[in-house]
């Protein structure tokens, strides 16, 4: 009995927060004359009620897993990075220019090159924040936010400038990917392979931070940088690597949006996954395995939007209200968590 209680304890604030958010959302809807209980049922149905709903949910969860890692890995090293949207933008941009140089190549090497380009570009973008902090003492939260704006501006500048496909008139885009380079659906599903990569990378990062010497060293740096330095750990290198891996994950999310969703780089792929990823990571307490679950929860809310709109005529912003409320509740209920959690 005690073992069950110990195991369940960390989930109590989480469950309480989800219930509180659902209750507040229901009250909010009821106050405006919407059928509140039906809305809650529709959220569950639209998110997890059918195989179609699940596929929609999982497609939305995939990029969230990757952008959340952009927060979680630096957080292990004690850094609060909030610039995932910028890493996603430069990752998408880097991935989108690769195919132009590889016309006529077989698909797999091109896709791997695109993934590598996205990973490296996103990783370098966030590693720059880590370097600015380590070498110049600039707070990484601010610098990553500033770099996110700069990355997004660069993205728009290039997509509407030199990289623009002249055929894209109303919606400036880069040259669309050739058919064979596109990343398709996984066998037997309509969800693209991005989900597989998202889960795999979350699992790999979970292994990295928990089971390896590198992960342990990063944790020491995050816990007490001075002690880490005294112990002879290469603090700067560890911070830089953690940020590079995190930024790389977000850059990969950008690559997947290009290769599996939009087919080219355009402004539509900057849909706020970078910002939502911050909250997914905090809600999962920066635990890569928890991120998978949180991303599926948050992706599910987004997926239920169209059903809410169709059946009971809720505005599409209803899912934003529920997501925002859920995050506020999750963060607030964190205070009930008795175990000492690292305050990043």
């Amino acid at each position: 009995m005690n073992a069950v209680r110990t195991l369940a304890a960390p989930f109590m604030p989480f469950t309480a927060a989800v219930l509180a958010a659902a209750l507040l959302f229901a009250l909010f809807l009821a106050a405006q004359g919407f059928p509140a209980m039906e809305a809650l049922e529709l959220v569950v149905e639209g998110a997890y009620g059918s195989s179609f709903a699940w596929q929609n949910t999982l497609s939305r969860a995939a990029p969230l897993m990757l952008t959340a890692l952009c927060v979680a890995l630096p957080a292990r090293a004690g850094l609060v990075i909030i610039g995932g949207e910028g890493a996603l933008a430069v990752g998408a941009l880097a991935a989108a220019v690769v195919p132009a140089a590889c016309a006529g190549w077989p698909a797999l090497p091109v896709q791997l090159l695109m993934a590598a380009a996205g990973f490296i570009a996103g990783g370098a973008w966030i590693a720059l924040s880590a370097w600015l902090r380590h070498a110049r003492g600039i707070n990484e939260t601010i610098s990553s936010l500033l770099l996110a704006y700069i990355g997004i501006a660069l993205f728009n500048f290039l997509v509407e400038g030199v990289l623009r496909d002249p055929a894209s008139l109303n919606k400036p885009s880069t040259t669309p990917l050739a058919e064979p380079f596109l990343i398709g659906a996984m066998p037997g599903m309509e969800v693209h392979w991005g989900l597989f990569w998202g889960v795999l990378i979350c699992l790999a990062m979970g292994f990295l931070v928990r089971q390896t010497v590198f992960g342990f060293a990063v944790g020491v740096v995050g816990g007490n940088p001075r002690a880490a330095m005294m112990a002879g750990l290469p603090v700067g290198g560890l911070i830089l690597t953690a940020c590079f891996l995190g930024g790389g994950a977000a850059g990969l999310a950008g690559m997947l949006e290009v290769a599996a969703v939009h087919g080219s780089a355009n402004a539509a792929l900057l849909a706020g996954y970078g910002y939502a990823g911050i909250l997914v990571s905090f809600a999962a307490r920066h635990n890569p395995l928890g991120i998978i679950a949180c991303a599926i929860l948050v992706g599910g809310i987004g997926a239920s939007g169209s059903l809410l709109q169709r059946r009971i005529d809720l505005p599409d912003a209803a899912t934003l209200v529920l997501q925002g409320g859920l995050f506020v509740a999750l963060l607030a209920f964190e205070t009930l968590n008795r175990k000492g959690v690292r305050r990043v």
Partner: protein
Amino acid sequence: MSDGGDSLAFGSLALALLGGALRVSTPFLFVSLGECITEKSGRINLGLEGILVLGAMSGYGVSLASGSPWLGVLAAGLCGLMMGLLHGGLCSLAKVNDIAVGISLMLFGTGLAFFLGKPLIQPQAPMLPSLELGAWSDSAQLQSALRINVLLPLGLLLALLLHWGFRASRWGLALRLVGDNAAAARALGYPVVPIRIGATAAGGFLAGVGGAFLSLYYPGSWNEGLSSGQGLMAVALVIFARWNPLRCALAALLFGAAGALGPALQSQGITAGYYLFNAAPYVLTLALMAASWTPGRSLAGAPGELSLTQR
């Protein structure tokens, strides 16, 4: 092209820039003054973007319903105040991270504004009046450049007031003490947590007013693409201004001018680089932070309790 033509083009570019800066800097001004108050108390609120959008929506709605844009401004401020109270209250709980709460409030406020603002997209609400400072000139261009909104002088006045207040008033000193050294403030008997909550609420009020400007003056309507991230930029702006209200006002004008540079150049036929000009303030802020860093010290002028400025 002759010299005369060049100077004419340059003159009208400068006028377009001035007009643009005066027009679009007002939301920057209010949001940054609000964030300045909050950060002086040692907290950071990244949720001002959500407050700005919520303020724009509620200001527009109340102006439409009551017929008075000033009631709209007040309502926008009060909405911001409530959101600020929520942020301040939540961050006073143990183990709650102020950066994450800010970002979740950004989502929440935006969602709330979009949800409740659906019926407001069509109707036209009464707008805030403008002041014709250019009436003395007979150049139509100068007149339009100097047609400023009534909130701008109020904001500048507020910047002066805050500048004086932070240095010379009892509440200003208490606020700064709480933000610089919470332990010392506690030892002197100042209530640290209530002061911080109050500072966040005041910051929220001003951000809401900044939002009302967007919907009630320029661009002057309610739609979901109204804000172009002015609320998020506030954080960069306050750092750029090094937590000084007068410099906040200057930085707001500068950020406004940088934003106006793209459209102004576009009207002169230069379209390239639009987005790079938009990014200029961030590059400047980053460069400023890198340049002003000295070993072993946090950024000059920064509140000591602010998590953002500690290594």
